């Protein structure tokens, strides 16, 4: 029987970047994996935790556990959502003093993987057969780099893409300045950090910026477009789907 996994697309990708989720399905299907989308999924609760409204995250966590409990493997299309689940779910469950929920959370969390991590560390795959003949920089988002420690996963996957030229992004490991509501609350600071990130991307003469978090990419691409750089951004899944079968029912855009 074919291996089956459940996709956690995240509220963000579901609403704003459906192409990322469609691409992830294409990549996983091409590897012979059946993909399910449990319809009850919404949001992991990261926005609440990070902004100081942790109690608001509890019902979202409950919904996540209810939705994915029956799944054998869960693949998330966001580094920061995966980090949120790994770092905060146990603590959130314990706050409820609900021993059933605590046990269910403990059981579920180790089955959640970030997309690139799943490919390289669980499946042991680096070449998915994609081709993307462009000059690319990889921006390792903070949560994927420093919480999940999966810098290598994406780099190895990108290196295996046919025609792709991976160029060095100066100060790649530095934050892009997004930080969720940080970009609003400390908007001037966020913009200052972003300006330096954009400068580094431009200096690398990249055509495409690739990352594991569309939230950071939304922020980066907002400035790339504002400055008319002509540089595009892409979630890793979209790069890996290039050259594989076409995505059904899409208009080529998001």
């Amino acid at each position: 029987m074919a291996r089956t996994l459940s996709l956690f697309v995240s509220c963000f990708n579901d609403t704003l970047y459906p192409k990322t989720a469609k691409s992830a399905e294409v990549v996983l299907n091409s590897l012979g994996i059946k993909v399910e989308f449990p319809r009850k999924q919404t949001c992991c609760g990261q926005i609440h935790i990070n902004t100081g409204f942790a109690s608001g995250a509890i019902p979202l966590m409950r919904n996540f556990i209810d939705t994915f409990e029956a799944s054998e493997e869960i693949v998330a299309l966001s580094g920061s959502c995966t980090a949120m689940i790994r770092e905060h779910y146990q603590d959130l469950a314990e706050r409820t003093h609900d021993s059933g929920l605590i046990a269910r959370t403990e059981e579920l969390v180790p089955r959640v993987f970030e997309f690139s991590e799943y490919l390289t560390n669980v499946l042991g795959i680096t070449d998915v057969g994609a081709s993307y003949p462009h000059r690319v920089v990889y921006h390792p988002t903070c949560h994927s780099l420093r919480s999940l420690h999966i810098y290598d996963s994406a780099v190895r996957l990108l290196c295996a893409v046919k025609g792709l030229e991976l160029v060095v992004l100066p100060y790649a490991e530095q934050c892009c300045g997004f930080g969720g509501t940080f970009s609003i609350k400390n908007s001037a600071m966020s913009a200052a950090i972003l300006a330096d990130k954009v400068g580094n991307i431009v200096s690398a003469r990249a055509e495409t910026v690739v990352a594991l978090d569309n939230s950071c990419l939304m922020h980066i691409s907002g400035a790339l477009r504002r400055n008319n750089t002509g540089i595009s951004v892409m979630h890793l899944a979209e790069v890996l789907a290039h050259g594989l079968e076409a995505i059904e029912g899409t208009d080529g855009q998001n």
Partner: protein
Amino acid sequence: MVKTKIGFPSSSVRQINNSQLRANLKAATSAIREKRARVVGEKEDWEELRRKGEHVRDEILNNLDSYLMQLERSVTAAGGIVHWARDSAEANQIILSLVQGHGETEVIKVKSLTTDELGLNEFLAQHEVTAFETDLAELIVQLAHDKPSHILVPAIHKNRSEIRDLFQRTIAQGRVLSNEPAELAETSRLYLRQKFLSSKIAISGVNFAVADTGTVCVVESEGNGRMCLTLPKVLISVMGIEKIVPGPDDLAIFLELLPRSSTGERMNPYTSLWTGVYPGDGPSEFHLVILDNGRSRVLADPIGRQALRCIRCSACLNVCPVYERSGGHAYDSVYPGPIGAILSPQLFGTESSLSLPWASTLCGACYEVCPVRINIPQVLVHLREKVISQGHRSRTEAMSFGLISFFFQTSRRFELLQNIATRFRVLINHLHVSKSAPGALGKWAEARELPQLPRETFRLWWRRNRDKNGK
């Protein structure tokens, strides 16, 4: 978040727009950052050392009461005199009384954050006692009537030319100076040497105090601290209650962790250790002032207390993208940067410090370099919740997050919101959002375009293309 003009968002804007400051900071922090990475990289057991450091600091914090009593006994047995201060007012009064008791009107100082926390220099000045800073960078800050902006490099915000101009104005005694570092250092040396030889009283902070032996340790790079610690007749050292290590062997761990993390050196240049007093050698009178000033309150918070593990290395400042662009002054506290963002609100709880838990993107670079493994992002998130639960937040914000929680907790409600957005998609996507737009949108538009809403959410696409096929 505190709805006020006081606080990090507004105080950092001034610094962000100061291009000279930005350039000074970028040059200085990148240099220290690279040096640190190099010397940490050559220690194969670095992670193990960090864990040891964390373990020893936690052992102290979890049993602080007995270690403090042990320290008092061992310092007293070695001929030192221990004073306890609940807050800065008590500590300042103790120190002033000691100085006045010796009939002195001048003291020399070793660079010390704890005395900065007390506002000691200002307090002494009010009582006609002049405190001379002897650390080169502290001297620069003092001569400029400025404030330190970095834990380790207080004058990091100033470049050579600015320092040259300052020295020319204040201590050059008529000689014309160039901006050569050696010449600037010589100018300060000539000025300070007189102070070392004439002062009867020195005041220092404490890096570590060994509970078992009563040995006190100060680390520094210039040797000026050593002068203060050995030449005067009376030595007064001030330490926070958390600055203890159990025994001399534990000290060795931190003498490895600290220099590599702070200055990027393998070994600290001047490490002074003394135990009480010795007749005919060094100060004949030694006072140790042990300060609480909010620390036992921090200790009561199981998540927040890890901030007290800090050994003041400042590695977290040097890697912080926010600090690099705001500088230390924006934090409006003796303790700037990521460690300040978790220490200041807990220790002082002032209005401006309550915005500090939000002065971070939660990028985690600070946690990665911390030699005692303080999980700064975890404490930041914890303090955000704490500040908000104390009612420091706007009504709009509380309402928004309540609504998000309500609509995001079932897929039915979530989909309802998505469908409304999709219905107005064309309108939303053609909306030209300018900087003057109200609230979050305007803030976003200051530097970025908005994302475009897609024709269809993933959820709907899946329903159309997958569910129907029974796939």
